[in-house]
């Protein structure tokens, strides 16, 4: 784990150095692109100002992501078990990804007000799709030889599902999870633009509208950090759950 992170961290550091040097060299004003040092400085000095924003967003992400993947998995499972329903609802699923949130916003507000519900809904909307699609595809591509075996053994649909298809789809499910996790953070930030009193998204729009580009980047910094943490958790879970996989061995 530790040795593995040396490489990406060095790449990051190189990028940061190039960034720093070029902002200084070309004398780029802070409001166009603040140098990394400026951002870090603001991140440290402003900590007291924005820490409650981060806390609020993290809560939102965690709950939204949990709901999102649950919904995604349930949808995937239901659609897989009931192919008729899949045929009927799959197009709707796709459509759901194409309702621009900006348009949905007023409706959500009318229906749910400015509380936490519409925000969770948006995160869910953003999260559930990748996991649902990946899981459905994963479930459908189960090794047919094993399916045949299970059928001959008299396994019920439910048993085939729980004992074979589900574990078989796990690698693909994790692809979806990774994508979902990545989007959940972004989804939370977007949802905060829908009307919130705190959160990274709020902090960012305020910073943006008062031309504090350095603060905008502090917000981005935290968004990224959050996202990487989430991603790392998913990858760790993948490692544990897929430990049987032979492909892991000779690498």
């Amino acid at each position, binding site marked *: 784990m530790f040795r593995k992170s040396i490489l990406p961290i060095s790449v990051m550091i190189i990028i940061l150095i190039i960034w720093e040097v070029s902002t200084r060299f070309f004398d780029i004003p802070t409001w166009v692109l603040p140098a990394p040092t400026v951002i870090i400085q603001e991140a440290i000095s402003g900590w007291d100002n924005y820490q409650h924003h981060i806390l609020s967003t993290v809560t939102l992400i965690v709950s939204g992501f949990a709901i999102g993947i649950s919904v995604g998995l349930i949808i995937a499972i239901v659609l897989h078990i009931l192919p008729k329903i899949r045929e009927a609802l799959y197009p709707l699923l796709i459509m759901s990804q194409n309702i621009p949130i900006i348009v949905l916003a007023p409706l959500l507000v009318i229906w749910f007000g400015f509380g936490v519900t519409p925000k969770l809904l948006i995160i869910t909307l953003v999260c559930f799709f990748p996991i649902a699609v990946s899981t459905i595809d994963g479930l459908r591509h189960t090794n047919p030889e094993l399916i045949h075996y299970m059928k001959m053994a008299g396994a019920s649909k439910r048993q085939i599902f729980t004992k074979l298809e589900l574990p078989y789809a796990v690698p693909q499910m994790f692809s979806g999870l990774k994508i979902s996790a990545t989007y959940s953070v972004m989804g939370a930030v977007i949802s*905060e633009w829908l009307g919130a009193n705190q959160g990274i998204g709020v902090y960012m729009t305020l910073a943006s509208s*008062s*031309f504090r580009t350095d603060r905008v980047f502090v917000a981005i910094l935290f968004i990224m950090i959050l996202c990487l943490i989430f991603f790392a958790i998913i990858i760790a879970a993948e490692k544990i759950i897929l430990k049987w996989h032979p492909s892991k061995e000779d690498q």
Partner: protein
Amino acid sequence: GNEENTEEELEEVTLVLDWTPNTNHTGLYVAESKEYFEEEGLDVEIVMPGEAGADQTVASGQAEFGISYQEQVTEARTQDIPLVSIAAVIQHNTSGFAAPVEKEITSPADFAGKTYGGWGAPVESAVIDALMKQQDTSVEDVEIVNMGNTDFFTAVKRDVDFAWIYYGWTGIEAELRGTEIDMIYLTDYSEKLDYYTPVITTNETMTEENPETIKKFMAAVSRGYQDAIDNPSEAADILAEAVPDLDEELVHASQKWVSPKYQDDADRWGEQSTEVWSNYAEFMFENDLLERELDVEAAFTNEFLPE
């Protein structure tokens, strides 16, 4: 202008709007449609900025001109962003706090105990407080929620009681819909809040290196707004034709309301005064909305307005 200019000699400039086209921008579309720009030797592209906003784009030189607000320019300048206001589109602040009549908000004192829907900027509570102080109440009694991109009509359906609108657009829409609203104009309660919104901006590089272009541009724009003042209905037609996706009825009604406000009591269209700029900057500074004081003289100029 020199009408004989052939097309390839036209100087290309970009103008970035503040948001979607509306009757604040009519003069620009009139100038374009009636080829006033061409007559000045300019080829103007009008661009909607979307999420990007105009200010940074103009300041960085990606666009020559933009539409902004005094408040934005003030804030930008105190962050060393080289934005300059070169004309006030509307002489007096036409914005204010609106509420459906059934909410019974007729004066700032009625704000107390109600819910305000805004976009979360610190300036909002400062302004509300300034109004309420006049009637010995305080913003502390107002519940402020952030309603993000939600529009006025949607917001007041739910938890929100009043919001900040431009009467010239949202107020007129309310009239057209038959929704009765009470309007509390900022200007009715505080001199200092009579700031310019919107304004036309350019950047310092332009003012230093290309004053001629700015002059030509402003000459054309002035003619455009003059026409819009003189003939609101024709101007509205031009806007509606240039941007067919706007609601024509709203454009006409709004234009009728806005046209007299463009120049209003000023000597000429676009005139800005030091007093207005310093008043509002003071207000902002006093309310901790600025990190330092504004150099008022550098923030705007009337020098490019035609005589």
